[in-house]
């Protein structure tokens, strides 16, 4: 039963990243190695998802030390799906990066940093140990600091400094929360914590640690009222890097919140109502922030915040249907949001700007890009039959079944405002009069292929929802009733 498969999505980027440091000046070779690693990672992730579906939760105990003593990787359906979608978007963004970044940035260790970032993201999704989760967070954060500052142009240094300080603060809080939990229970294995935490006498300290974790993951995930750093930080780096961050990084915080709430804090009285309240505020304030913006990338960044509200809505309702909707939403969001950022990058390559006031008439020169934007934008707003519709339908049905009418109303209103935002981008960037000059940059075909594959997957996810749904439902059931997770982790040798 024990197989080494769960370590592969982490080990492969580590080896590739190390090799890529040595290949610094050989750009063609670097690109080939990176693309091959991502493609192989995609295959491994697919095998992992299938393995979890047929054989149940996979556990790998490192060094043969059994669960509460050693570090384990525990892969349930949610982890496997997250790794899978990570590898999908990392492959697509990598293709886009190979044909859009300038050589100077590529030479400044873009490819190794990219691999280390993927390693950190996959590690966070797979680990079953709280301190190990902290370490993976740091791995991905340090790579993201470097990627965000890569090139050191204009905005980047200032925004990276702020991003770094905010994340370093939240990491400190993460450590403090871990210290509190360890002093209460004497263990850091999440499954072991789940069994020991309900027996702790000092409920006040348990509640305090819960709040600390909510602040930490809320900061990383961009939840209300902790999202203030996000729109500016994601505006700074080159668009392909923003796309990767916007698609993936905030979702690591959301995933950690799903994991921690379902295993440790679902029984703490204030957790779920707080999550529903925060979800509503995140949706609403994110989308209102987007309405005031006049820049392609900034609007998309505010929409990341808004969309994260939907995922947390699924968590806050905590019924199998709503959670499945939340998980479906995460997968849909990662694909579609990355696609939208890459479309912004494509437009930026053509016109040299992402300001809506300076753009216009992109549809005349590249109707395909405009069509892709329409599909992705409508999917983000939740128009049937695209993937966003399926996810929102599940969430809203879950909300109605739990009689949470307030949050359902907010989510419907926010969907309309999202549609308005997408129409605004379409109206000013793709329609209207051409304002700026057209510049020709090579590599347009490869960039379009990357975007098309992501949008295509989004469409497939919507049309093929019948086949995709069982995976999300299985993941949700494992979250709502973590007894199988706990038994598998603690029983593994």
């Amino acid at each position, binding site marked *: 039963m024990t197989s080494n498969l769960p370590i592969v999505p982490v080990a492969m980027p580590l080896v590739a990243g190390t090799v890529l440091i040595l290949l610094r000046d050989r750009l063609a070779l670097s690109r080939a190695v990176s693309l091959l690693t991502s493609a192989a990672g995609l295959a491994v992730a697919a095998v992992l998802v299938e393995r979890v579906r047929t054989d149940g939760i996979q556990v790998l105990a490192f060094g043969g030390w059994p669960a509460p003593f050693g570090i384990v990787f525990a892969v349930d359906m949610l982890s496997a799906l997250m790794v899978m979608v990570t590898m999908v978007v990392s492959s697509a963004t990598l293709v886009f990066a190979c044909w859009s970044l300038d050589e100077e940035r590529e030479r400044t260790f873009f490819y190794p940093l990219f691999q280390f970032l993927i390693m950190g993201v996959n590690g966070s999704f797979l680990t079953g140990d709280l301190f190990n989760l902290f370490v993976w967070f740091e791995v991905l954060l340090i790579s993201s600091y470097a990627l965000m500052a890569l090139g050191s142009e204009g905005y980047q240094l200032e925004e990276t400094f702020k991003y770094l300080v905010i994340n*370093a603060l939240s990491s*400190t809080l993460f450590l403090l929360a871990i210290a509190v939990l360890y002093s209460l229970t*004497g263990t850091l294995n999440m499954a072991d914590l789940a069994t020991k935490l309900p027996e702790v006498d000092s409920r006040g300290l348990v509640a305090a640690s819960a709040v600390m974790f909510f602040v930490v993951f809320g900061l990383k995930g961009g939840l209300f009222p902790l999202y203030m750093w996000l729109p500016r930080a994601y505006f700074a780096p080159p668009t392909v890097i923003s796309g990767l961050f916007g698609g993936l990084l905030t979702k690591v915080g959301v995933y950690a919140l799903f994991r921690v709430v379902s295993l440790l804090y679902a029984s703490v009285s204030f957790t779920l109502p707080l999550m529903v309240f925060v979800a509503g505020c995140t949706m609403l304030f994110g989308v209102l922030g987007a309405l005031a913006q006049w820049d392609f990338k900034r609007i998309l960044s505010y929409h990341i915040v808004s969309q994260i509200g939907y995922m947390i809505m699924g968590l806050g309702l905590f019924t199998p249907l709503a959670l499945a909707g939340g998980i479906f939403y995460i997968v849909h969001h990662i694909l579609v949001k990355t696609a939208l950022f890459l479309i912004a990058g494509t437009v930026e390559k053509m016109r040299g700007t992402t300001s809506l006031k300076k753009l216009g008439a992109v549809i005349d020169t590249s109707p395909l890009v405009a069509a892709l934007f329409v599909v992705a934008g409508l999917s983000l707003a939740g128009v049937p039959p695209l993937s966003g519709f399926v996810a929102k339908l599940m969430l809203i049905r879950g909300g109605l079944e739990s009689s949470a009418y307030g949050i359902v109303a907010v989510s419907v209103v926010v969907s309309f405002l999202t549609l308005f935002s997408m129409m605004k981008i379409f109206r000013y960037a793709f329609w209207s009069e051409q304002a700026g000059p057209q510049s020709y940059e090579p590599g347009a075909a490869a960039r379009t292929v990357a975007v098309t594959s992501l949008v295509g997957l989004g469409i497939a996810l919507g049309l093929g929802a019948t086949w995709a749904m069982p995976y999300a439902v299985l993941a949700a059931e494992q979250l709502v009733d973590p007894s199988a997770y706990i038994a598998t982790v603690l029983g593994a040798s």
Partner: protein
Amino acid sequence: MEYLVFPVIFVLITSGLYLVLDRTLLRVVIGLGLLSNGTHLMLLATGGLLPGSAPIIDGTEAAVVDPLPQALILTAIVIAFGVTSLLLTLSYRTYQSYRTDDLGELHGRLDDE
């Protein structure tokens, strides 16, 4: 014994927070250093600061020290070291570009809107 360490942790974390709120780049970096040191001490204190022998179980030991928090802070210190050096590099690079270490002056000066 823990009660002697808690005031130290308190002072480290509060002064760290105070410095992080400052506008000078370097003070923010120092503040983060103090903050992380306070947290590391806190982690160490969770294991209980009791006298005891090394955790080698051979049947003769009376009281052993919990080795896990020490392993944890070792990892955390290395990470904090890496982050701090990156932060210092970034601050220096920012100073080189803008000839100022005042975050208030930096703020918004590159806003194109």
